[in-house]
């Protein structure tokens, strides 16, 4: 029984691991911290797994536990070097025609998102994952209206960071 549970859990997490990696990448600045956070999220997911009823998709259920872990995990605050954020992410740009400015804009935007506080980052992350406001508000524990208002403010903030 336990082995069966382990097997189904690991299989599903393996399939959906990108979600966790994306969160780790947003919330940490180097690969050690990334791996630590990934491991902690895995442990927390596994602990909560017996309570996962399967009435929602595994991936939907993961968002909440993973973000909760990322936000509440105690981390030593390392002074991150700003330029590191640029190296930290790379997108496979395949749009035709390939465009340097697009890539630069993307990286700028990504590093601006990374500089947000933990809560705002969670909101933007869910937004980027194309979650609707109902889901976002339920994950964060705030009302839908407030989630919308907050998201608009963050968009405004990001806009001014990118285009000063």
């Amino acid at each position, binding site marked *: 029984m336990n082995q069966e549970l*382990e097997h189904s*859990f*690991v*299989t599903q*997490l*393996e399939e959906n*691991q*990108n979600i966790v990696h*994306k969160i780790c*990448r947003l919330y940490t600045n180097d690969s050690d911290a990334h791996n630590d956070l*990934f*491991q*902690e999220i*895995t*442990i*927390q997911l596994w*602990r*909560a797994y017996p*309570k996962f009823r399967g009435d929602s998709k595994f991936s939907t259920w993961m968002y*909440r*536990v993973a973000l*909760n*872990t990322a*936000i*509440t*995990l*105690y*981390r030593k*605050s390392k002074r991150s070097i700003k330029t590191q954020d640029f190296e930290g*992410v*790379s*997108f*496979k*740009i*395949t749009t035709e025609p390939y465009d340097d400015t*697009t890539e630069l*804009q*993307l990286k700028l*935007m*990504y590093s601006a*998102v990374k500089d947000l*506080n*933990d*809560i*705002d980052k*969670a909101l933007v992350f869910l*937004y*980027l*994952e*194309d979650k609707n406001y109902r889901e976002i508000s*339920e994950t*964060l*524990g*705030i*009302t839908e209206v*407030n*989630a919308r*208002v907050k998201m608009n403010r963050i*968009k405004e903030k990001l*806009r001014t960071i990118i285009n000063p």
Partner: protein
Amino acid sequence: MDELEILKKQWQSQEQVLPHLSYNDIYKMLLKKSSSIVKWIFYISIAEILFWTLLSFLVPESSTKFSDDIGLHNILLGVNVLNYSVFGFFIILFYRNYRKISTTDSIKDLMRNILRTRKTVKYFVIYNVSASILLIIGINFYYYVNQDIVFRFMTEDYGISNISQERFMKMFFVIQILFGIVMIGFVLLFYRIVYGILLRRLYKNYKELKKIEV
């Protein structure tokens, strides 16, 4: 189109270059130990509860005899009964709050529950510190009023001699007060260091989240 929308489109249409872990990598992680803040708070809280409970047991026999001699037996017994009832109450409260912590809650509920559990222990310690202060003041007041008996039994029980009552009592009270100040200072320092570091970010995030709701 604004940059966030471009990022969103990229975010979804193409996967970022991400590490990939194998089935076995993930499986191995299940066996590792958690280092979550909740676990740390739990351990530290248990240690604190044990510390204060043990402290109340660690009264030397001679001191007990001394308090019996000068007629504090019944009062101290009453204080102890009250003290342990309060301990029991806090331990139950702590356990109930701790059980409520769940990573499947919303981010806000989770943080609220962690902070509430933490607060239970904080109040427990505040209770202990203020009870200790009150007890020290109360007992010393009693000693002050009954200086003659205190001096008589002190010299008998501890074999102190060659000292005048006036000088002895002065020293006696100075030591009592110093001991009280050092103990309280130690507790406050412990608080600043341990919880300052551990909970700073959590408080900050919780405040941030509550700000959204205003």
